[in-house]
């Protein structure tokens, strides 16, 4: 079943008097429980594509259907609701709330979903346990290592049981070993049936996915299935 269908999507930015075509004409579909990497050099339009896939932005032209709903012509509030319930974001810079502890950071999407305190706490604890941070719940981001922060971010992405997990350079700010840990975490999530979209410019990271979509100059250059993919193993701690 298709979770994501985009047809002839274009995104044009107005920079001063000049028009910049970030995406020219992109069409693709992503199924449930796929593990996709979107690759491309900077300026290829991969960030723009990620923003559109993540419902943070709407395309200038084309049609975007997300779990059967037309996203291209939704209002800001409807988009917010989709982001809240259907999409889990993991960012390169973690993007945690600095003044809140791990538990509250993970709780936040549930707050916006209007879920009561008891259930919220319970689900946030569960998500943090999944990423092996059950003993760090009351730590603030600045009391956590980079890997731990990213795991909090993954827990936050998971907590609403989203249709897709959208990770933008999730290992970009981490050392290789810690990056490997995060990739192992994604591996587990994938095995549990989650749909994962990875945006990266690192070949090594992209090779963890089952399918790589390569962008260049706002167009899909190549869309290939990886036969011998890399499988990250969790470190023995």
């Amino acid at each position, binding site marked *: 079943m298709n979770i994501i269908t985009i047809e002839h999507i274009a995104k044009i930015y107005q920079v001063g008097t000049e028009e910049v075509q970030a995406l020219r004409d992109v069409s693709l579909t992503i199924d449930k429980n796929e593990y996709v990497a979107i690759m491309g050099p900077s300026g290829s339009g991969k960030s723009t594509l990620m923003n559109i896939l993540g419902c943070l932005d709407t395309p200038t032209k084309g049609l975007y259907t997300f779990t059967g709903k037309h996203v291209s012509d939704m209002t800001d509030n409807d988009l917010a609701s989709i982001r809240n319930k259907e999409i889990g974001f993991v960012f390169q810079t973690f*993007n945690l709330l600095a*003044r809140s502890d791990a538990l509250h950071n993970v709780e*936040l999407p549930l707050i*916006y979903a209007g879920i009561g305190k008891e259930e919220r706490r319970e689900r946030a604890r569960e998500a943090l346990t999944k990423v092996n941070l059950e003993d760090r719940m009351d730590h603030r981001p600045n009391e956590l290592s980079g890997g731990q922060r990213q795991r909090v971010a993954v827990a936050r992405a998971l907590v609403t049981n989203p249709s897709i997990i959208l990770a933008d350079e999730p290992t970009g700010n981490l050392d290789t070993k810690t990056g490997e840990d995060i990739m192992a975490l994604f591996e587990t999530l994938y095995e549990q049936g989650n749909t994962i979209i990875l945006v990266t410019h690192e070949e090594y990271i992209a090779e963890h996915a089952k399918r790589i979509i390569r962008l260049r100059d706002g167009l899909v250059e190549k869309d290939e299935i990886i036969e011998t993919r890399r499988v990250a193993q969790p470190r023995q701690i």
Partner: protein
Amino acid sequence: MEHFLFELKEGLIIAFNAIRANKIRSILTTLGIVIGVASVVLMSTAIKGIDESFQESATSIMGTENIFIDKWAWFGDVPWWELRNRRDISMQDYRDFKAQATLPSAVVPRTVRRQTTTYGDVNVDGCFIIGTNQDYIQTTDLKFTEGRFFSEIESNAARRVCVIGGVIAEKLFPQGNGVDQVIKIRDKKYKVIGINDKQGSFLFGDFNPDNMIYIPIEAMFKDFQSRHRGGGISISVRAPTNQMVPAVKEEAISVMRRIRGLKYDEQDDFSINQQAALLDMINQQVGVIQIAGLFITGLALFVGAIGIMNIMFVSVKERTREIGIRKAIGAKKRTIMGQFLTESAFICLLGGLIGLFIAVLGAKIIEQYDFPVSVQVDAVVLAIGISLLTGVLSGLAPAWTAAKMDPVDALRYE
């Protein structure tokens, strides 16, 4: 509704954390509101206090049920030289009026002079000597600490007896026991037969019952005032009830015109004065004070509001990334808006409560100086209402800026 309360609660927690994270800045920002609210509350209670004591003083001196038939008009646009040329109101006018008027519950003559009073080696200058008769007591609500008012016999016989006001009594007889003592009014010896309770009055300075000495009007004519030259009196008329005042006034005009023998086309050559007219004037003046006072204090509040708005804009800018994160994980425009509105309302509410506290303290201090102020429930409501309103209004523009941020740009903001 439930959802709203939920968001409000979350908003409050976020606001509280944000304030705690920027303690100094929050305190400085709040200061404007603290000063604004404190001055608004203090000013409004002071004005209310002034107004109330004006009314009270006016009532205690004149009584709302009294009208005064006088040569002079207290207010109005009749020029003073015309008033001066009017005939004096005489004791005969009083007697005729008393005989002919049917509605009043009491009619008394009244005349005032200022004299120095002496007891032993204590002098009290500028006492108001009121010459009247035994019925005067029915036109006031004077209370007696000791003794009594003079009787009809004493009044008619022009006995040298007097009833003295609380403040004069205090000065002449610091030890008490004033009754039956003999005091000197100018050079005449008068026996004290009654002492009134001290009332205290804010309005009219000395002209209040505390500084008055009542003597029989005939004694007044004998000792201090010529019956012929400058011998005019005024007539105090008491209506049985407040509702009767207009009727009593109507009757008084027609009776007086008859007594004075005025033709239909002649103007009244007397004035009917009443407390209502005085109250009107007081209310007008209090109104002016009120507008000026509230305008100035309102200005302080306005400056405070600008401070809040400014700091909220800074706060929004600073937290652009946080707004981006919140939006990315599903915060709606309304939620972000609510968050910042709650924050500014909360800061202002805190400021308002502190301001209120200062105002209460200030009122307590001012009260020490016999200036009538007390912070009432409505002032508390006013303070909370004003500070919440200021918070919401000054938070509106910054909150809207935050709410309409583009999540992509906000997330990229460094």
